[in-house]
């Protein structure tokens, strides 16, 4: 069924809000400043409830089915985390309240910083960045502040072709020019490629490990040494931390600064596109540059330090996405060290299982042991006229969210699958069967795929016209 837009259902005089009692005299504001009441829709409470209940029914969420999105780690979002974040002592806390009145929150922040530092094998953490990309920016700002402090700012940064799109964008924001380098034939970076471009005008390298092909960058330590030798720093994109928790510490590989996506690795909900959280951890020598405020532990409890001499400043109005941080904290406390290690093990097992199960059906450009995800292409289907997009749309009809497609860019027609550790063998088997069925259909009934999806509320949407003649409000 179609659900009308809010304002189409509006009727003059309705109000779904319980207007609070006014127990003080009315004060007339100088009419010079008073505007007309905004033309918001006028609805009853039941209208609002039904409207959003229906909208929700048109959405696919994790609880609806598997979400095999490469590099986007869509794991189960535990319900208990929602309970923790909803405690009134947290939700009703003002961010500028005096330290002694917010010890609970400060303790949580302090300890979460410690946990993340331990997981990465680094010295310090800031929880302020609001999302993964914001974390990347924080990392770049740290690197920028470091070089500034060294007395010689640099102008370039090395970015491999497998990088997330946010990497170059974040570097640009700090005024760095991206130097793109290619992965080697095995899908991983070679020390030679890095050595060829690394110089003393280069601030460092941004590297994702495991990379977006799902492969562990085996030469990372060697690459880090090359970069360090020239006075550069190594930025780690931690989007794929889900593969290596408890297995290897990025700090041990020579990474100097790394960001997390708490909404990936640490089970906080994606919310249909945020809010996320993108903390960064850094090695000891970079700690002075972290943003303020910092949380400190003293004998009298926890306190916020609002200025430090070398900090690059502030990047969010308050203390980060606290509501998201609570959930990540609850998750880490629920899992413990052994649990997080198991997370990575099962995430890698699941990905390898899918790789092994589908490699006869889909082209596998890099047939190497993968980590948390595997990347296929549509090469085997291309002769039938069927593309990655067609298969992705068709898989919706089988009750699955499509994988990430056409990324990483280095792989033509990429199909990037990350099952995550919370999917059971049965669900994965169903997904494999569904994908095999789609591959079969690609040969036998390609029209079915071309017109897919068939089951959702709407069929394939015209994105070209949407962009050419944008209609962005009602």
């Amino acid at each position: 069924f179609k659900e009308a837009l809010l304002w189409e259902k509006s009727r003059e005089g309705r109000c779904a809000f319980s207007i609070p009692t006014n127990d003080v005299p009315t004060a007339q504001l100088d009419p010079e400043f008073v505007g007309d009441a905004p033309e918001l829709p006028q609805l009853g409470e039941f209208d609002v409830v039904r409207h959003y209940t229906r909208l929700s029914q048109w959405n696919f969420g994790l609880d609806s089915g598997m979400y095999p999105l490469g590099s986007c780690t869509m794991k189960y979002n535990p319900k208990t985390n929602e309970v923790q974040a909803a405690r009134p002592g947290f939700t009703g806390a003002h961010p500028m309240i005096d330290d002694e009145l917010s010890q609970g929150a400060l303790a949580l922040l302090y300890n979460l910083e410690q946990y993340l530092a331990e997981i990465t094998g680094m010295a310090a953490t800031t929880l302020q960045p609001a999302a993964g990309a914001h974390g990347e920016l924080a990392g770049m700002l740290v690197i920028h502040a470091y070089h500034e402090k060294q007395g010689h700012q640099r102008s370039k940064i090395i970015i491999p072709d497998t990088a997330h799109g946010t990497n170059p964008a974040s570097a640009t924001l700090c005024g760095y020019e991206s130097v793109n380098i290619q992965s080697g034939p095995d899908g991983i970076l070679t020390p030679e490629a890095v050595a060829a471009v690394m110089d003393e005008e280069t601030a460092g390298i941004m590297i994702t490990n495991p990379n977006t092909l799902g492969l562990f960058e085996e030469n990372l330590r060697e690459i880090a040494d090359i970069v360090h030798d020239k006075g550069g720093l190594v930025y780690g994109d931690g989007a794929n931390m889900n593969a290596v928790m408890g297995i290897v510490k990025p700090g041990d590989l020579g990474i100097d600064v790394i960001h997390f996506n708490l909404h990936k690795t640490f089970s906080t909900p994606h919310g249909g596109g945020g809010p996320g959280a993108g903390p960064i951890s850094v090695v000891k020598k970079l700690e002075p540059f972290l943003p303020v405020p910092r949380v400190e532990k003293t004998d009298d409890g926890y306190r916020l330090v609002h200025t430090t001499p070398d900090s690059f400043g502030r990047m969010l109005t308050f203390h980060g996405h606290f509501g998201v941080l609570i959930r990540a904290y609850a998750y880490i406390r629920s899992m413990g060290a052994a649990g997080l290690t198991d997370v990575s093990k099962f995430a890698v097992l699941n990905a390898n299982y899918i790789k092994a199960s589908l490699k006869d059906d889909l082209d596998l450009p890099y047939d190497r042991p993968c980590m948390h995800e595997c990347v296929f292409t549509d090469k085997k289907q291309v002769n039938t006229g069927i593309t990655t997009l067609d298969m992705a749309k068709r898989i919706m009809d089988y009750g699955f969210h499509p994988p990430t497609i056409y990324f990483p860019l280095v792989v033509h027609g990429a199909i990037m699958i990350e099952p995550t550790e919370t999917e059971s063998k049965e669900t994965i088997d169903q997904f494999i069967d569904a994908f095999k069925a789609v591959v079969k259909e690609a040969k036998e009934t390609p029209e079915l795929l071309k017109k897919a999806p068939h089951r959702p509320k709407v069929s394939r949407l015209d994105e070209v016209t949407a962009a050419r003649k944008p209609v962005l409000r009602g």
Partner: protein
Amino acid sequence: MRYLPHTPQDIAEMLERTGHASMDDLFETIPEKFRINGEMDLPQPLTEWELNAHMEALSQEMCAFPKNKIFLGAGSYPHYIPSLIPYLAGRSEFATAYTPYQPEISQGTLQGIYEFQTMITELLGTEVSTASHYDCGTALTEALLIALRKKKKLNKVAVSSLVHPHHRQIINTYFAPAGFEMVEIPMAADGTTDLDAVAAMDDIAAVAVQSPNFLGCIENLGRVKEIADSKKALFITSFTEGLAWGLLKNPGSFGADIVAGEGQSFGISQSFGGPGLGILTARKKFVRDLPGRLVGRTKDTKGEEGFVLTLSTREQHIRREKASSNICSNNGLNALTAAMYLATVGKKGMRELAQINHDKAVFLRDQLLDAGFEPAFDRPFFNEFALKAPKGYGVKRQELKKKGILAGLSLECYYPDLKNHYLFCATEVFSRQDMENLAKEVKNG
């Protein structure tokens, strides 16, 4: 562990297919010497019940609304949240969904955000709105960066010193590596921005003020427009208390080019400051300059209406280093929450609620004046205002904390000239009695 479904039999069957002898073999590509020896040093796992007890204890160590009376705004406001909002926004189809890149199975989020964009532009009198940013501070910064991109030859913007101090810190952070400069416009005697000072500034890409400003005073947006025009600069405004637009003339009506704002007041809990809701809206001509996501209306192959993310060629995942911003995920669920709130409150509720906020603040101000405070500025305000405290108030304020009352924010650390000045806020959540109590406490010294 209850989140990990693998049984020993599953593991055996799966390893057989992958051709690994053991779980450890899965990590064969990681050089042995880098593998962690032993376990990470993290606390022992808690059961769900131990976690509940632990988190409840932490949360009890907080001074928080509604248990406590916190007469504080300054960018985060206590407001009532209708019970339907946590229920609806908490439905997992919304909360656990990914970014709606696959529009066919994401129409709920997409229609919801489209409605958000519509209501926000209605509220602010602008023409286009992004799907959200992180918070007001980052949204305002992005607005200034738009101005600097539009005026490529300039590298300076004029920003009111009465913009939230934290927002100005963020601007500085983003500006530093890029070599941009923020010139602060000083404060006038009436607690508003001294716009005359802008006359002397040259080569500025934008003039930005916050209204109501950090001290609660309503700025003269008409004059900002004039000054900005005279400097051929973009006119940018921001706000931290969205409810103000239920009562005040909106920034669009003054001709603002870009409006940045904080949407936390729209049904989003304060949560120690985040996640909030960054609002970024503008006149239509800036549509391709706006960073972040946009939802647009379109049709499917059968001619049915539907919604998609659009104009993504501006975005980082397409443009990479040439993107207008690195923003990727935003605060989408909070935008949806704000839309729910605005739909619930509606035209009538918005006006009445705004008026109540104003009434309460005026009442509190009168009470405090009566209790010995002195006016700081003679300028209309919405629900926040600054006052000069009577002698000994610092001590009194400390005492009140023990009674669960947080009475105002000391302004001195932000504005050294405003010694003994405090910023107060009153919203619909404070009863007359709460305010009279506070005044009585102050009066009794």
